[in-house]
């Protein structure tokens, strides 16, 4: 049976009946009606309390109260909607920025590799490679022979794993008919088992796969999703890698994208031993692949510590083995005076290289958004304080009417909860967007979906904010007490010294933080300017570049291919000149080694490096680039395999290795002395790897004269839009080989700008946060001052009635904010020194103590303070004394 809940009214009626019955009875006992009624009531006690208890009974009293508080809060916030919107937006920006930066930081710096027990994994590093070797990275890569020795003899490790990309960027693959590109690595047989990466589908590799150089491949979960739409029947299908068929045998665990620094590997194959699949996609060096070449240190190594062995013990055990292995095939021992390389182990817990690449900028960004959040919170607290001070009378009245402190507190917390949750919801949306932008920046291809850590972080911030906002104004709300309701004078109740001191402190703090942020932003923006305006040393406009990986087998075949290609491209309309190069300019790649000069490794005074960057290029290389030839000549078509070998060097090379002589006619060549070239030209220093590099000695070989053919990059100088030539160029290439794609076609300028993309985005973000800080500070300052002036209307009225001039009133108000500005600058500048020092590694062409940045920051802060004060100041001066006094 369904029974309706009994109404409060019914209950009230019952009590009424009780009182009447009781009174009747008392009357019968002889009391007069008046007294009987009074007695009955007294006996009963508080009717209201009983009714209240009835009302609260069987209800979710707290929920009821919450709903009431929420309604009340929303109503009172709607009354001051400008305040509410300002608060919510401020919070959204502050918290959103923090969440975004934190989620990237979480992803990049805090998360571990998705492998089992990552704490026991280490990257192998060497202090330097032995002399006479070429490397990919001086400290991070090793030769195959070192790997082979270590994995058999290093007992300190349970597993040693090698991995090496099939190409510097992407490698040509084919699945079905269409040629495409993907990032692939050759890895040890123990790669997946040693790292402890699970394979949700299929299998990993085995030692046998490595020994037999098996034609099998494991693809990443991401690649499986992106390219194969999670085809459940993918196992057993064939993936052609550089035209070599590989059978897909497994899909790696979701989130595992290899151990390459900053990259995301699409597929892995066991270490191979065939020309098409040499490490890094290089052509064999004197016919030797990476496996047979002890002078090419190209493999990265990662190892798992043996059970129960500490890192130090492992290193002690492995060190002598490594030092012996390092010279295998290099004469067995160090050359005279050569220091043997020293092995070290680096934490492999987090993603490789991320910390080095993004650690500092991210930490700086985190600090910046932290400051912005601090400013934002201070702003909101100040707004709340101002608002609640204005409501002091409301609070006093409510206290006088019997509202307890707990009740007031609950209401204030509810109001702040409304603000904080609205702000938080907006912040989340904002953070999602910002995270995507930041993710692009960090080139994190794995998903950046906020995980539990990020959620906890944001909730933590929100809760702190909510409590802070509830507590800060409570003091003011209660300070008045019930009796303040009785006071009517604005002048008497409002110029409480303590409160204004609090507000002043907050404003001063904000101005301090603002100076710091502006200096940081200024330094980074000047860095950005410098990077963008750095002369490259060439005419970069009108240049377009693309890569080719022709299917050629012999050196003469390769030379013929490129000769033919250049000849065809040269006659295209709009093409001014054409050349080719082995390492693409502005790609960050370079070939580094010591070089023979006049038949020997040069002695360099005062310990400067003997490293030379070299490149293999085609005819008219410098003419095409627009690099001035200072002495001698450019390469020409007449430099052929049969003519005397020639080389060209840059100014820095001449200065360091051939000081004080005319370099023309001297010789240079690789440090192993395989061949020697006569220097026929000296060119001006220009940028090679990246925009922010310092000049370094460089030497160029003519491609037709050295016995290597590599995939080359074609550089075209054209009239008009450089990219417009690409369709025509593609047609030319396809006439020669229909299966040949243009690899990464891009203008040369864009290619160079890629090298500073990270710095650019960092500087832009820093600038944005600086701007955000300024806006927040300005609105906060304006709000605080305007509020103070309003509160002092009566006082100003009195002053003006007593004869104060308008100027004096304006000055009175301005002086206030000027003092605060001075305080902000005095504390902010030394703090900014510290920040500048911390930033120094991210700066380019700017000193951490850059005077202009500091000056601009100070001026900026002062201007904001001034502008924010002018309006309230003039308003104060326009106060009509009579009106002001009448507000009493």
């Amino acid at each position, binding site marked *: 049976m369904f029974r309706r809940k009994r109404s409060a009214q019914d209950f009230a009626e019952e009590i009424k009946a009780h009182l009447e019955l009781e009174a009747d009875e008392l009357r019968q006992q002889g009391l007069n009606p008046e007294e009987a009624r009074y007695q009955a009531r007294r006996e009963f006690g508080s009717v209201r*309390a009983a009714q209240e208890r009835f009302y609260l*009974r*069987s209800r979710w009293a707290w929920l009821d109260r919450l709903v009431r508080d929420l309604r009340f809060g929303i109503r009172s916030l709607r009354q001051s909607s400008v305040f509410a919107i300002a608060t919510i937006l401020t919070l959204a920006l502050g918290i959103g920025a923090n969440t975004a930066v934190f989620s990237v930081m979480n992803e990049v710096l805090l998360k571990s590799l998705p492998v089992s027990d990552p704490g026991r994994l280490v990257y192998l590093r060497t202090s330097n490679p032995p002399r006479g070797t070429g490397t990919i990275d001086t400290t991070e890569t090793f030769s195959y022979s070192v790997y082979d020795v270590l994995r058999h003899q290093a007992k300190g490790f349970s597993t040693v794993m090698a991995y090496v990309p099939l190409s510097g960027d992407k490698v040509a693959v084919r699945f079905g008919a269409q040629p495409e590109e993907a990032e692939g690595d050759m890895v040890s047989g123990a790669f997946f088992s040693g790292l402890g990466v699970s394979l949700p589908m299929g299998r990993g590799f085995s030692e046998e796969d490595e020994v037999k150089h098996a034609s099998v491949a494991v693809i990443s979960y991401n690649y499986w999703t992106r390219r194969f739409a999670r085809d459940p029947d993918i196992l057993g299908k064939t993936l052609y890698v550089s035209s070599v068929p590989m059978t897909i045998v497994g899909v790696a665990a979701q989130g595992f994208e290899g151990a390459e620094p900053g990259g995301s590997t699409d597929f892995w194959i066991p270490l191979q031993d065939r020309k098409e699949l040499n490490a890094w996609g290089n052509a064999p060096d004197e016919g030797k692949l990476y496996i047979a070449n002890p002078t090419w240190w190209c493999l990265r190594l990662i190892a798992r510590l043996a059970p129960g062995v500490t890192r130090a013990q492992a290193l002690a055990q492995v060190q002598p083995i490594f030092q012996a292995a390092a010279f295998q095939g290099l004469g067995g021992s160090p050359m005279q005076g050569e220091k043997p390389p020293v092995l070290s182990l680096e934490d492999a817990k987090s993603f490789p290289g991320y910390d080095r690449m993004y650690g500092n900028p991210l930490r700086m960004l985190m600090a910046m958004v932290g400051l912005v959040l601090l400013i934002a919170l201070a702003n909101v607290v100040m707004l709340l304080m101002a608002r609640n001070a204005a409501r002091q009378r409301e609070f006093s009245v409510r206290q006088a009417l019997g509202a307890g402190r707990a009740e007031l507190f609950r209401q204030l917390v509810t109001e702040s909860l409304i603000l904080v949750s609205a702000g938080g919801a907006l912040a989340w949306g904002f953070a999602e967007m910002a995270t995507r932008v930041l993710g692009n920046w960090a080139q994190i291809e794995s998903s950046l979906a906020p995980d539990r850590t990020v959620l906890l972080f944001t909730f933590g911030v929100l809760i702190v904010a909510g409590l802070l906002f509830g507590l800060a104004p409570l003091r003011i709300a209660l300070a008045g007490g019930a009796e303040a309701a009785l006071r009517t004078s604005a002048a008497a109740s409002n110029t409480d010294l303590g409160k204004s001191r609090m507000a002043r402190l907050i404003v001063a703090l904000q101005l301090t933080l603002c100076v710091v942020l502006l200096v940081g932003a200024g330094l980074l923006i000047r860095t950005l300017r410098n990077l963008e305006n750095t002369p490259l040393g060439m005419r970069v406009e009108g240049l377009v570049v693309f890569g080719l990986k022709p299917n050629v087998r012999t050196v003469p075949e390769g030379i013929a291919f490129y000769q033919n290609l250049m000849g065809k491209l040269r006659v295209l309309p709009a093409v001014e000149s054409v050349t080719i190069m082995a390492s693409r300019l502005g790609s960050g790649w370079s070939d580094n080694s010591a070089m023979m000069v006049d038949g020997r490794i040069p002695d360099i005074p005062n310990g400067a490096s003997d490293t030379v960057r070299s490149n293999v290029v085609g005819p008219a290389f410098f003419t095409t680039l627009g690099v001035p030839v200072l002495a001698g000549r450019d390469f020409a078509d007449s430099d052929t395999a049969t003519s005397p070998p020639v080389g060209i060097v840059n100014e820095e090379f001449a200065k360091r290795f051939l000081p004080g002589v005319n370099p023309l006619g001297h010789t240079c060549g690789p440090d192993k002395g395989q061949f020697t070239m006569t220097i026929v030209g000296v060119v001006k220093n220009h940028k090679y790897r990246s925009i922010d590099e310092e000049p370094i000695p460089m030497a160029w070989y003519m491609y037709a004269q050295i016995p290597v053919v590599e995939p080359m990059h074609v550089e075209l100088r054209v009239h008009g839009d450089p990219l417009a030539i690409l369709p025509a160029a593609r047609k030319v290439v396809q006439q020669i080989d229909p299966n040949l794609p243009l690899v990464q076609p891009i203008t040369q300028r864009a290619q160079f700008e890629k090298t500073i993309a990270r710095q650019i985005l960092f500087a832009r973000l820093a600038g944005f946060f600086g701007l955000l800080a300024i806006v927040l500070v300005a609105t906060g300052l304006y709000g605080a001052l305007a509020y103070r002036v309003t509160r002092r209307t009566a006082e100003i009225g009195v002053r003006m009635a007593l004869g104060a001039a308008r100027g004096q009133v304006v000055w009175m108000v301005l002086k206030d904010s000027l003092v605060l500005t001075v305080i902000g600058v005095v504390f902010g500048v030394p703090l900014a020194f510290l920040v500048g020092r911390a930033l120094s590694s991210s700066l380019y062409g700017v000193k951490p103590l850059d005077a202009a940045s500091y000056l601009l920051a100070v001026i900026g802060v002062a201007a904001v303070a001034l502008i924010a004060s002018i309006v309230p100041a003039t308003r104060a001066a326009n106060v009509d004394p009579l009106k002001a006094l009448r507000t009493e």
Partner: protein
Amino acid sequence: MPTQENNDDRIALLQGTLDLLILKTLLFGPCHGQGVARSIQRQSEEVLFVDHGSLYLALQRLEDKKWIRAKWGTSENNRKARFYELTARGREQLTEKTEQWNRLTRAMGLILDPTQPPAPEEV
């Protein structure tokens, strides 16, 4: 402001005993709240004092538990009043609670005055 003084011999009810007293009172027939209060006071020779507010809440609680039911009626002196009446479940509860209470008081008695003979069983 006048304050209440506790200068009589009345005892405030122990937590949880009010329900039992109400059920027992209603055993003798339907009654309204005021009657229940009076009855408790009178039966206890004015020793037990029932807070009226609590009484009505207790009545409501018992009604919610379906131990008693209520309907509006007219009192002997023609006043409108809400009459309460025991349900079957209420009777069961009364028996059970009385047993509990007797066990409790006997135990208390044994401890407070061990010379006393055990109290006879009663319902």
